[in-house]
């Protein structure tokens, strides 16, 4: 295989690495940094990367099946890249003011490389490497608000719980190696015999993942970390990190453990039901908007698990489709949160009272995002959610679907509370009119289009489905 082929296979990784090196050189050699120039450069680079993803369809594996690439993986990487681009645009205003803007970018790109490797991994060794590369810089990012105690607290919680979950995962992986004699996905799959010890390993791997995706009962770190971190990091955690982990979770289950399907489908159904219910119950009582979105994202993860448990190629497509739509809606919500919190530090739901009077654009953006999360037509969230449920129905998970639909009513209650605060409630001192900077406006417009159009255009789903596989 020629060098060019390697680069083509690993284009995302090479590209991100190039940016990191470049940023390091800039940091070393330039005295005074021009932050807007750097951010502009990064945005352009990310757009280039996004475009590069569409050229050709590299398919295959390198490094002795350590690194896989196929259509679905490329698609997931593109979603990750796209979400990161949106987050950079959203955080532009905040980043420009930061002294350590360059470090932020460096860390974020390190996370991104980790994610890319994680998504592409074909071997548990690579998988673990990617996971750690994606986690440790992320904890540093969570602590990026140096002035705030909560930020440090969140980062501490995150690094501890990540280390804990990694340890459990690693223990499971070592057991896998012990029982099958390999770490390669295919070889593990072939050697897997559902012996008691091997089922045990499955449980450990499950727990490791459950921490990353914040599935109940391993969700306790989520709210604190989301609340403490800077908004940009929170949106990254809730969109990119969660999306990538869910994706690799699904592919590991499908690729490596098809033999134990019956076992993990049962576990998934149970976890999914608990996750959405608990997430909902806690979300109802939140007063801080970031904590609120944290619990709402736990609930959403519960919905996604329906699709994972359905194990058909349609359900896999629904999961990726949902992740895409969730990216639009959550980033839209976080952009509004970030704009408001940047200007005057207000992060309580009560602060949003009367927002529509002063900032109609922000309120409508938030409303669309919230409706899309709740799955109300005509937003894309409706389609995403219905497809997940339909895929569950096609696989006969009727009980889970009943629980999920009941949960949707509950979730509508608290999503409507946000809408009520913005549109109905009166406030004597509402948030004053905010002039939105151009890059945040771009994000809002992209999300508007995404939320309103992605559902109706069946092409998106068709494209994703053409790349998906099932059990």
């Amino acid at each position, binding site marked *: 295989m020629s060098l060019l082929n390697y680069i083509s296979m690993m284009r995302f990784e090479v590209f991100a690495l190039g940016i990191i090196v470049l940023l390091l050189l800039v940091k070393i050699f330039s005295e005074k940094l021009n932050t807007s120039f750097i951010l502009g450069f990064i945005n352009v680079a990310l757009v280039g990367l996004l475009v590069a993803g569409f050229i050709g369809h590299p398919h295959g594996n390198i490094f002795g099946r350590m690194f896989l690439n196929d259509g679905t993986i490329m698609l997931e990487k593109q979603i990750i890249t796209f979400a990161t681009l949106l987050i950079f645009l959203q955080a532009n205003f905040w980043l420009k003011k930061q002294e350590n803007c360059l470090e932020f970018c460096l860390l974020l790109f390190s996370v991104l490389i980790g994610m890319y490797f994680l998504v592409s991994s074909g071997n548990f060794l690579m998988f673990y490497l990617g996971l750690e590369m994606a986690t440790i810089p992320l904890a540093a990012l969570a602590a990026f608000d140096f002035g705030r105690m909560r930020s440090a607290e969140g980062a501490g919680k995150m690094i501890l719980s990540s280390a804990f979950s990694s340890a459990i995962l690693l223990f499971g992986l070592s057991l896998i190696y012990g029982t099958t004699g390999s770490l390669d996905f295919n070889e593990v799959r072939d050697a897997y015999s559902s012996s008691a010890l091997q089922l045990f390993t499955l449980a450990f791997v499950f727990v490791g993942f459950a921490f990353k995706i914040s599935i109940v009962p391993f969700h306790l770190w989520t709210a604190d970390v989301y609340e403490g971190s800077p908004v940009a990091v929170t949106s990254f955690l809730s969109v990119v990190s969660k999306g990538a982990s869910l994706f690799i979770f699904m592919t590991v289950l499908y690729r490596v453990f098809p033999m134990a399907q019956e076992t993990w489908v049962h576990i998934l159904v149970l976890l999914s039901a608990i996750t959405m219910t608990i997430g909902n119950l806690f979300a109802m009582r939140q007063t801080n908007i970031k904590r609120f979105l944290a619990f709402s994202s736990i609930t959403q993860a519960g919905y996604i698990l329906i699709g994972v448990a359905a194990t058909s190629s*349609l359900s896999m497509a629904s999961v990726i489709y949902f992740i895409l739509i969730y990216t639009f809606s959550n980033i839209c919500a976080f952009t509004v949160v970030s704009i408001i919190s940047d200007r005057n530090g207000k992060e309580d739901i009560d602060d949003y009272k009367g927002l529509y009077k002063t900032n109609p654009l922000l309120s409508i953006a938030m409303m669309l995002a919230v409706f899309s999360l709740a799955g109300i037509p*005509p937003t894309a969230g409706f389609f995403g959610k219905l497809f997940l449920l339909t895929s569950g129905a*096609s696989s*006969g998970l*009727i009980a889970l679907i009943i629980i999920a639909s009941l949960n*949707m009513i509950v979730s509508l209650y608290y999503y*409507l509370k946000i809408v009520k605060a913005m*549109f109905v409630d009166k406030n004597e001192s509402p948030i004053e009119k905010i002039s939105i900077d151009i890059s945040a406006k771009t994000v809002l417009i992209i999300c508007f289009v995404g939320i309103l159009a992605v559902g109706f255009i*069946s092409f998106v*789903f068709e494209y994703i489905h053409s790349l998906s596989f099932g059990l």
Partner: protein
Amino acid sequence: MNLSFLILIPLLTLIGIMLVNGKTARVVAFVGSLLQLGLAIFLLFAYMHERGAGNVSSVLFEETHPWFSQWNINYHIGVDGISIAMILLTSVVLVGGVLVSWKMEYQSKEFFFLLVLLATGAFGFFISLDLFTQFFFFELAVVPKYLLISIWGSGKKEYAAMKLVLMLMGGSSLVLISILGVYYYSAVGGVGTFDLKKLGTIGFSHEIQMFLFPMMFVGFGVLSALFPFHTWAPDGHSSAPTAASMFLAGISMKLGGYGCLRVAMVLFPEAAHAYSPYIIILACIGILYGALVTVKQRDIKMMNAYSSVSHCGFVLLGMAMLTKTAIVGAVLQMVSHGVMTALFFAVIGMMYERTHTRMGDQMGGLLKVMPFIGTVFIIAGLTSLGLPGFSGFVAEMTVFVGSFQVQDLFHRSATIIATMSLVVTAVYILRAVGISLWGPIKNKEFELLPDATWNEKLASIILIASIILIGSMPFWISDLIAKTTETLFSAVIK
């Protein structure tokens, strides 16, 4: 004729409302709704023409475009007699609603946007023949109500709005579960189908029908105030702004009735038979209970809200009787109640705007100060109590005649119990008319109150005209419905 225009016109109206500013929004909404009314009438004639020309297919003007082919989801639309009646009803009420809200000052642009959005959902719901598309429109017609009631409403509006939306969404999630169940069980190897026409020919097994029918019927039934799930209706109707009450009681409750009849009973005929006694019992309780509670109301808006529960009971009663006449009566009652209640809410809104009270006993003598509004109130009342010549009589009579055709003791006694509510209806309607319109003028300030403005007059005239059109010439509409009923419910009718 191309049915997609029925969705396209409201959509364009929505875009128009978004583009113009402030006061012009109402003009756009009015023009859009008039166009839609024109289209609905044209559709009626086109339909009758096709039928006259000997077209016997059950659904006319069908259109199918694949949408999400992986799931077997199609954009499949078409109309039959029942849906045409519903479309006419929706467009008449929409025009009335826009006219009545003409003087809306507070955020009028948003108000008209949401109103037309609701209507879009209703139109789409009535013409869809694909369960997925239909469900899409169904939910579209629910959530905007939250904003309409909680922003522009009165009284304990936030509580009422939340209660209404959560209960209706509860119903809609039951519907969703049953739709997904239908999809699962219709799969003969591979993917299932959402297509109503195909599903009608599948014939589900008895167990599946018994499992799915109650969920779907109750789910839709929540919308048409099936006892004991009616509690959202009084709160919601009485707290909503006038146009939204008109829409809620006039159209949204009919979404439920239409769903129960056109979807649940067509898909699960056996279960419809098995469950019909229970539905009859619940409907009778709803009819009598609604009527009796209405007698206790001093608030005339609350009165009409509760009487809607009672009147919608006739819709459910008619369908559960499972005779052709009774089902036709149920559809007639949907249309008749839709127009009548819209008129009632409109005129109550006019009176409230002038007197700033909704308590009947604080009014008095209003007929002397505002003869037009008073007359409209009397006409709405008489329609409600079923005076011959108005639509209410035609509809209720058909339901009773149809019910009486079933000759066993249970159905007979249910019919008799239901007819008793007519007396109660007469009590509260005549009393309300008596205290608020006749007698001396209780409040000196009321003597200077102005009569209806042009927009209110126009709205009332359009609605009254429809009432009289159904009431004095019922055959065109009952023929329209009866033919469809025969073909659709051949498996159900006894």
